[in-house]
């Protein structure tokens, strides 16, 4: 009888541990991923999560963090906000020292708020809204990516300097905060540049079946603009670019990083004169050879190269957090936040990163400029905006 009961207990324990294979040992450091492993957000969370795992493995191979191994634990948000909060709680209960949340602010915030409530550090995988951080979650929250506004400002400066563009047409997709952020950055920077004129503006919505009326308005301009600043994202951006090009408008089109990746370019045969900023190149031509080494490692580990630059913030995130932990000598959130906020132009594989006590996000960053010619994307330049985007522009 005694043995049977013990066997049963042992069996139950075995089942529990089988159900949670990633349960950490006491001395391990735990990074909890409350991200989407299914549903709509899965395709967007997965690449950055995989890149984060690569950095974790590297650190472990090098002997760990503070001499301890980093163990990732996962909870699926199922691309659902209510489930997101539960997933956040689940990884915290599994002992997470840091909580990684979904790429998008709206989807990641529930888990981040759970972490905040427990005074744990949370990192958005790739959210590019200022709310993904102190402003929207609290003093323990960070984003691993760069603000959308920086992308718009980068394109304004670069297109003026390098393409010689002086007249711009702004076409804004009002669907998301991300799109609005790109245009906010552009609208802040472009008018400051001498000689630059915005000759027209229009809006559309991402799922508009047709933007014919908007295109007619561009065509009716007395002179075609030197460039079109398009502030849009998948999937509507593809449709917009296709319709603009099909209408015979061949001027340069600028957009944010959201359209990085060559996977969509079949939709616009022989697309040319299309420009975007990227944190690193997935096309094998990054000026830093270590980035290409990362791409190769990513492919070896997960079977395919990163499809866009949105894998990279995951790597940067673990890298920066681990450095801060190393410097603080502890995983204690307050001490690590303090170390993170000391980072000023901290070098990473994908450019320098800065955090301050006001902003846990990048309001200035080095971007590579990718130009698409005849359907082939390639890095043509690198650019860092003259001055950081002021907080009041970001919060407007």
């Amino acid at each position: 009888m005694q043995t049977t009961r013990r066997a049963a207990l042992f069996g139950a324990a075995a089942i529990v541990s089988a159900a949670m294979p990633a349960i950490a040992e006491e001395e391990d450091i735990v990074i909890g991923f409350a991200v989407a492993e299914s549903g709509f957000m899965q395709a967007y969370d997965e690449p950055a999560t995989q890149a984060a795992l690569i950095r974790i493995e590297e650190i472990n191979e090098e002997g760990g963090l503070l001499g301890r191994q980093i163990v990732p634990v996962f909870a699926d948000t199922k691309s659902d906000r209510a489930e997101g909060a539960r997933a956040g709680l689940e990884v915290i209960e599994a002992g997470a020292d840091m909580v990684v949340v979904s790429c998008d602010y709206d989807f990641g915030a529930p888990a981040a708020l759970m972490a905040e409530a427990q005074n744990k550090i949370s990192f958005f995988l790739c959210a590019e809204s200022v709310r993904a951080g102190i402003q929207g979650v609290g003093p323990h929250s960070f984003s691993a990516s760069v603000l959308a506004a920086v992308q718009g400002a980068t394109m304004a400066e670069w297109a003026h300097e390098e393409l010689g563009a002086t007249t711009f047409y702004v076409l804004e997709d009002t669907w998301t905060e991300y799109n609005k952020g790109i245009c906010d950055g552009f609208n802040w920077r472009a008018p400051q540049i001498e000689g630059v004129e915005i000759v027209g503006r229009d809006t559309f919505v991402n799922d508009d079946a047709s933007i014919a009326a908007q295109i007619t308005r561009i065509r009716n301009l007395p002179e075609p603009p030197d460039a079109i600043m398009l502030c849009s994202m998948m999937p509507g951006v593809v449709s917009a670019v296709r319709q603009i090009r099909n209408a015979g408008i061949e001027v340069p089109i600028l957009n944010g990083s959201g359209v990085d990746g060559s996977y969509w370019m079949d939709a616009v045969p022989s697309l040319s004169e299309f420009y975007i900023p990227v944190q690193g190149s997935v096309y094998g031509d990054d000026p830093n050879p270590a980035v290409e080494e990362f791409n190769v490692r990513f492919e070896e580990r997960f079977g395919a190269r990163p499809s866009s630059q949105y894998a990279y913030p995951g790597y940067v995130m673990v890298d920066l957090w681990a450095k801060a932990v190393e410097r603080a000598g502890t995983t204690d959130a307050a001490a690590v936040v303090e170390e993170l906020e000391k980072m000023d132009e901290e070098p990473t594989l994908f450019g320098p990163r800065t955090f301050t006590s006001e902003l846990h996000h990048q309001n200035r960053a080095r971007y590579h400029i990718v130009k698409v010619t005849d359907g082939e994307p390639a890095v043509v330049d690198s650019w860092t905006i003259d001055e950081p985007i002021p907080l009041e522009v970001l919060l407007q």
Partner: protein
Amino acid sequence: MTAVLQILFDALSLGSLYALGALGIALIFGVMRLVNFAHGDYISFSIFALLWPTTAATTILFLGQVPPAVLIPFVILIGAGVSVLSEILVFRRLRDANPATLMIASFALGFVIKNLLLMLYSSRPKSLSILPGLAQQVEIGGARIPLLQVVTVAATIVILIALTAFLKRTRFGLEMRAAAQDFTMARMLGVRANRVILLAFAISGMLAGAIGLAIVVQTGTADINMGLSVMLVAFIATVIGGLGSLYGAVVAGFLIGGASVLMQVILPLDARPFRDAFVYALVIVVLLWRPQGLFAPRTAKQRV
């Protein structure tokens, strides 16, 4: 003049999509008082059938490579197929259920189709360039119009004429109109209910396939939510057209398309992001003025 012509074509081509969508919804509503919210997912499904199932970012065309003469009928048949299947597998079993149950069932069905696509293809939009010839511009009265717009409008007119002829000149059409007028009476007079309903689903599904084609040629993108916005507008069009009136649905579809393009043209920049709010405000005005819709069939009135 050129500008007016351009706007007219913009409005007509957008209106065509809405009109075809509204017609698809009105056909089903006519014969079985079902507002089929899965209609938008038939649109996505018929396009995704062209793609090889993969969750990778790149698109692998499955049947997209075939010539247009095969491609177009294929997509339309897929639309008809999924629609007919949903009638046989789901709605036929709910024949005696009340309209609210049917509506919820259609929501559930749409959810199943969408999640099936999500599972097979992931949420990432897929890019594909089919029928690239339609991307050219043609000059009509000085305005440069995308050939696709001309084709969409022309195809819609042909479809509407063919459907009218079918409804007015054939026995099936007569049965369908009779069923739409008064389903119980039609059954008593010997109209075979299941056959008429199945036919309505088939035609409705074909229309969904046609809309899918027009959208994908326009946008170059297949997205699991691609049918959603058209479906929503189409549903509103059937309501303001007068639920049950096929003619009303088509007219209202064109009206909403026209209103949407017109708002985009005339609204000042600051108000343009709220374009849809203005369009729907117009819809509310129409419904306040004629709660039964613009062309409500006589049978739709409450007989109390």
